[in-house]
């Protein structure tokens, strides 16, 4: 039978109304509350649970088939009323922790949220001392719960910052839990690249949950936290190293790979050094933004203060500013900052100075770089000579502990050259190398004296043994003489 298109539409609408009515007619709780026009029932119409056919009694208990209020809201029928404190999350977890039940609605849905929440920082006891700090409804709402993919949901990516900020931006509320925690994260976040894009409706850009997690949030001091210092590079790289994910953003994706090889990355990953910088130390955390050309030396200088200070007073500062060279990055790179070895300076192959200075171009810089490198090499050679001599003396059993202090002075001078080099001033550099030369000269002299002392002891022993042995022989002969005389 061929039906006309308008008739088709009427049939469909009627069927839909019938289906809706048949659902509602079974849920007597909803029917009554809808008639009362209360807020929960108004919100519940848009609730994801309502849409999949769950009734009020699924969370509140009672008999939803009865239109008799006494019977429907009777405790014997399991009516619990408005759940409070942990009962709220327990009511949610009845279904959301049941993998078999949840698969009926969404085979990919996760079911461990409540367990994660309980162990998270939010699962700790609230100031009332009777329940967790946070319940499911705190973030997801109660009667108007939407899917995470629904832009009206408070946990939809673009809504997450505001949702978290409800508590985290409330200074008086946060005072009760963590007075030292700042409450301006959202403000900072809105200044960041992530925050700006998020405000524009970009759902791929990082929001609170992207870095901190959702149900399994831990304090940043907790090693399990995604934002624990040593975990931050991996957390950031989840997005920033994913080429497919980052294809909409015009930035490279090799930062993590480079960082791993850098002196900072080695300190973090191999030495578990908490003082080494990770992503947020240079880029900021909530206000994450790549440092600009002007501010690089300030960012690096927050740790490498002396180097930054020396550089700012050096002739390079003006030159770099004029040419708009990023200060530290020009010589050291950014994510792949390698250990600053002596070979970086000078005029030989591999030296950075050659980038701008050559024998026929910027000659003064070329000359100074050459002298500095030659002094560094001399100091290194003297250090090796001193170490070898001290080793020899030690092998001979001599006490070289005091001479070893001189080695420390040489080492210290070598370290200082790596700082003072940022002044790019020949005279200041020479002051430091001279200290090293003096210490190495003393170490070499004392080590040689120690070796000489070793041989002196050996020769002295031979002389002493010879003298004593001579006495022994004399006494022996004398004894023989007197005993012979007696026997005669």
């Amino acid at each position: 039978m061929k039906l006309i298109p308008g008739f088709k539409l009427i049939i469909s609408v009627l069927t839909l109304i019938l289906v809706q009515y048949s659902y509602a007619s079974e849920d007597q709780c909803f029917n009554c509350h809808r008639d009362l026009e209360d807020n929960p029932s108004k919100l519940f119409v848009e609730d994801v649970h309502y849409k999949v056919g769950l009734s009020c009694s699924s969370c509140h208990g009672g008999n939803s088939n009865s239109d008799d209020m006494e019977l429907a809201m009777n405790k014997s029928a399991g009516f619990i009323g408005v759940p409070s404190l942990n009962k709220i999350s327990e009511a949610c977890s009845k279904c959301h922790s049941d993998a078999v039940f949840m698969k009926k609605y969404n085979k990919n849905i996760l079911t461990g949220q409540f367990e994660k929440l309980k162990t998270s920082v939010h699962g700790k006891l609230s100031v009332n001392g009777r329940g967790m700090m946070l319940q499911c409804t705190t973030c997801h709402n109660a009667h108007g719960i939407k899917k995470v993919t629904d832009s009206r949901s408070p946990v939809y990516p673009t809504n997450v910052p505001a949702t978290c900020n409800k508590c985290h931006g409330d200074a008086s509320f946060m005072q009760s839990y963590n007075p030292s925690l700042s409450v301006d994260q959202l403000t900072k976040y809105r200044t960041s690249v992530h925050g700006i894009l998020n405000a524009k409706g970009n759902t791929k850009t990082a929001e609170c949950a992207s870095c901190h997690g959702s149900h399994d949030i831990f304090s940043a001091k907790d090693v399990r936290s995604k934002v624990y210092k040593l975990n931050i590079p991996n957390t950031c790289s989840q997005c920033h190293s994913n080429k497919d994910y980052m294809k909409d953003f015009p930035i490279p994706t090799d930062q993590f790979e480079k960082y791993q090889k850098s002196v900072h990355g080695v300190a973090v990953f191999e030495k578990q050094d908490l003082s080494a910088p990770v992503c947020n130390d240079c880029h900021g955390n909530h206000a994450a933004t790549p440092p600009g050309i002007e501010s690089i030396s300030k960012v690096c200088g927050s740790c490498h203060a002396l180097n930054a200070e020396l550089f700012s007073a050096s002739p390079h500062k003006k030159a770099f500013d004029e040419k708009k060279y990023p200060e530290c990055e020009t010589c050291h790179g950014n994510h792949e900052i390698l250990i600053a070895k002596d070979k970086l300076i000078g005029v030989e192959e591999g030296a950075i100075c050659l980038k701008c200075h050559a024998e026929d171009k910027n000659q003064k810089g070329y000359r100074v770089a050459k002298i500095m490198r030659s002094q560094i090499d001399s100091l290194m050679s003297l250090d090796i000579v001193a170490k070898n001599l001290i080793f020899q003396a030690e092998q001979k059993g001599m006490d070289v502990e005091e001479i070893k202090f001189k080695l420390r002075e040489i080492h210290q001078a070598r370290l200082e050259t790596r700082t003072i080099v940022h002044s790019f001033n020949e005279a200041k550099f020479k002051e430091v190398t001279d200290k090293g030369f003096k210490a190495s000269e003393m170490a070499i002299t004392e080590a040689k004296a120690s070796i000489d002392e070793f041989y002196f002891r050996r020769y002295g022993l031979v002389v002493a043994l010879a003298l004593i042995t001579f006495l022994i022989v004399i006494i022996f002969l004398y004894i023989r003489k007197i005993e012979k005389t007696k026997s005669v």
Partner: protein
Amino acid sequence: MKNQTKKFYDWVDSRVQLGDLVAFMSKKYVPVHSRSIWYYFGGVSLFFFIIQVVTGILLLFYYKGSSDLAYESIRFIMSKVQFGWLIRSMHSWSANLFILSVFIHMFSVYFEKSYRKPREMTWISGMFMFVLALAFGFSGYLLPWNELAYFATKVGTDIVGAVPVVGEPLKYFLRGGDDVTGATLSRFFGFHVALFPGIFTFLLMLHLLLVQRQGMSEPMHLKIIAKAEKKTMPFFPNFMLRDLLLWLIVLNVLAILAVFFPAELGLKADPLASAPAGIQPEWYFLFMFQTLKFLPAHVWFIEGEVLGILLFGLAGLLWLLVPVWDRKSSRGQQNRWINYIGIFSVLFIIILTIIGWVLK
């Protein structure tokens, strides 16, 4: 030259009557027999003691007996003081050789039964000196205030603490508190350079006086030989010259050891650091230490360590009183049990020391 010497001798003789002393010594004879060699170990022990006194006084010029300065002062002696390294090495080596020599001297006297009447007092004074020699070693070991010394002293005083009844107060007294600290170092220093030398010198004088007065003890088998057939040598100058000869040989050995194997200093003691692995006492305590380690935690109702300490205490007491309970030897009769006990003791000490050394 000869005349000058004679003149000087006469000058002294006219004032202190040296002639009497020379006459006494030249009339004094030392028995000569197949076991005469053992007579020299008393003299060698004396020589090592003299070296200890001389080198100890020299060390005292620079040593500072406080936990803040002790280690540094020894380092100073070894690296800055002229021949300081030699003096310290000689002191350290001589201490060990002194105890070795005392051990040999004690066992030779024991096996020869020279402790028998009338030399009971000589034996007992010698035994006290032996105990003091061990105490010298124990107290001196801490003085450099290095890591090994610190923890060895801790272990050693802990063992003292395990002695029933008097252990704990004695431990507290030795340590100058609950733990090994600078207070322990100060009192060990006091014991080592004042108390022990004072007592030791008195005992040594007594011991030498008795030896001079009673002469050298003859082995028991020589009793049956007629006096005219017995071989002897004058104490002065023959025996003394031989003594001197041996002293010089020993001095050569000591010099070689001190130069080729100088005493180490190690790391400074750090009471907050954990004890390094393989902490052991000096070799002469090793047999007792190893025995205590081998004993089970409990033997019947008594703690193994306490039992060990009590047994060593009892054995030491019996050893000290051997002239009292070995009546047979005093009567000139053979007492094989003395030999068996002595052999067992020597083997026990050697074997347990080797085991302790190997299991380090």
